[in-house]
């Protein structure tokens, strides 16, 4: 009996240690990624990188100013329609929705979230690029914006659901109409969660590359207006990384660093500021 118990204790110790190793490995990977990126990206980073256009293929030097601006434009337009639609949809689910219809919307939104982003790219290609017969910022924004909608719907809904009924009833009891109650009481009360959701939403699509590959495509120069193909940070990282030039590899690291920094900072700030007290 003593031997068996010793064995069981040993198993206890070994198995739990293994689980600790698993956790450490996973956490370690993130620090590894950050470390490498900081190192390689940091050493290739420069003011030129931020302000110059790419040089002709094969020539060293140059920067990715157009990609940074391009990403900004894409995100701006995508958010311009993705966020409001998603936000209002979330308001519907939380404030107006009927049982079955809401369930269907919620379920479909979650499914849509899981659709690979490259399929969204095909969608935007079919709707915008084919009729226009060329790539454009507009097409890229459509792909990204459509991805933003389901995320915004769910995060807005969840944020609004945390607002207690009592608050709303207070306003209604004073004679406020339903939409006024929502706009002046519920939404402000939930604003932290809503904003967090929006920030995370933008950060999520900021890093998307696949849907841009055949919608916004790429551009070695500035892309004025919305009708022309445009460079974007993620696509540049990709193009430069798979190229044959060392100088481009270095620039890919720098671009990756910029991209990752923006995404991580947005995530950390958003999650920390939205401290719900008891995290799970």
């Amino acid at each position, binding site marked *: *009996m003593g031997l*068996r*118990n010793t064995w*069981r*204790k040993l198993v206890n110790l070994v198995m739990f240690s293994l689980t600790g190793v698993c956790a450490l490995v996973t956490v370690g990977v993130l620090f590894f990624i950050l470390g490498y990126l900081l190192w390689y990206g940091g050493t290739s980073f420069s003011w030129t990188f931020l302000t110059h256009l790419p040089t002709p293929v094969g020539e060293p030097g140059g920067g990715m100013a157009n990609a940074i601006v391009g990403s900004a434009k894409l995100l701006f337009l995508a958010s311009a329609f993705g966020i409001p639609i998603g936000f209002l949809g979330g308001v519907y689910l939380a404030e107006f929705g009927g049982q079955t219809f809401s369930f269907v919307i919620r379920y479909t939104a979650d499914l849509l979230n899981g659709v690979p982003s490259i399929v969204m790219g095909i969608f935007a290609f079919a709707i915008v690029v084919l009729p226009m017969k060329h790539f454009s910022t507009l097409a890229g924004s459509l792909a990204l914006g459509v991805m933003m909608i389901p995320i915004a719907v769910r995060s807005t809904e969840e944020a609004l659901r945390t607002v207690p009924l009592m608050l709303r009833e207070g306003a209604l009891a004073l004679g406020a109409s339903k939409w006024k109650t929502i706009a002046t009481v519920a939404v402000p009360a939930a604003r932290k969660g809503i904003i967090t959701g929006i920030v995370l939403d933008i950060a999520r699509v900021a890093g998307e590359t696949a849907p841009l590959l055949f919608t916004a495509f790429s551009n070695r120069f500035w892309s004025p207006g919305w009708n022309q193909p445009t460079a974007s940070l993620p696509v540049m990282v990709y193009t430069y990384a798979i190229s044959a030039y060392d100088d481009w590899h270095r620039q890919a690291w720098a671009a990756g660093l910029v991209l990752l920094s923006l995404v991580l900072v947005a995530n950390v700030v958003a999650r920390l500021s939205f401290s719900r007290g008891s995290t799970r």
Partner: protein
Amino acid sequence: MAADDVKLRVSGLDFFYGPKQALFDIGVQILTNRITALIGPSGCGKSTFLRTLNRMYETLPHARAEGEILFDNEDLLAMDPVALRRRVGMVFQRPNPFPKSIFDNIAYGLRVNGTYRGAALHEKVEKSLRRAALWDEVKDSLHKSAYALSGGQQQRLCIARALAVDPEVLLLDEPCSALDPIATAKIEELLFSIQDQCTQVIVTHNMQQAARVADFTGFFLLGKLIEFNKTEVIFKTPAKKETEDYITGRFG
């Protein structure tokens, strides 16, 4: 009370949840193969005390017990907790069968502690279920999920599960509080029937239950053991005023 009749000898037991003291200088002798009931108002420490007897409090990070508990003259607080819990079993307030079949629930303790052999295992499971007066009701559905049973049946299953490993002591923490009167009566019958097979300590907020079932009763109040004696004495001629006040319903 002859010395070798004492199963658990508690002296000077203090218990702390972090900085807060929950039990004060508890001293009591639990006799072998008798049923001892612990009564008292909510939050008086009776459950806390029960859980020191199988060191279940060790799952909480800041809980600690100081003092002495002798289990057959062994230092309970220093023993290997895993070995201790094989000898001191526990039944909880709400039935908590595992998400397994009825058979596997009973067999769990046996398998984990090594009494593993095929046909012998089956025999042990049957024996436990018979002891819990559950065998006839479940013998044809041993491989069905335990959740298919009613609340009362699930609790008897949990008792059978605890009995399967032949514990010397069985701790019951308000085992009937989630059950209807009929299920309660069946369980009390069960406890009677296994009286001479193991020592039982039962926490109950139902005084009538204590009066029905227990040989000895202890009255807890605000973390102290106010009085401990034969059940008859506690209920008919309590020595302390607080005991009398509680029994007669003046508080609690």
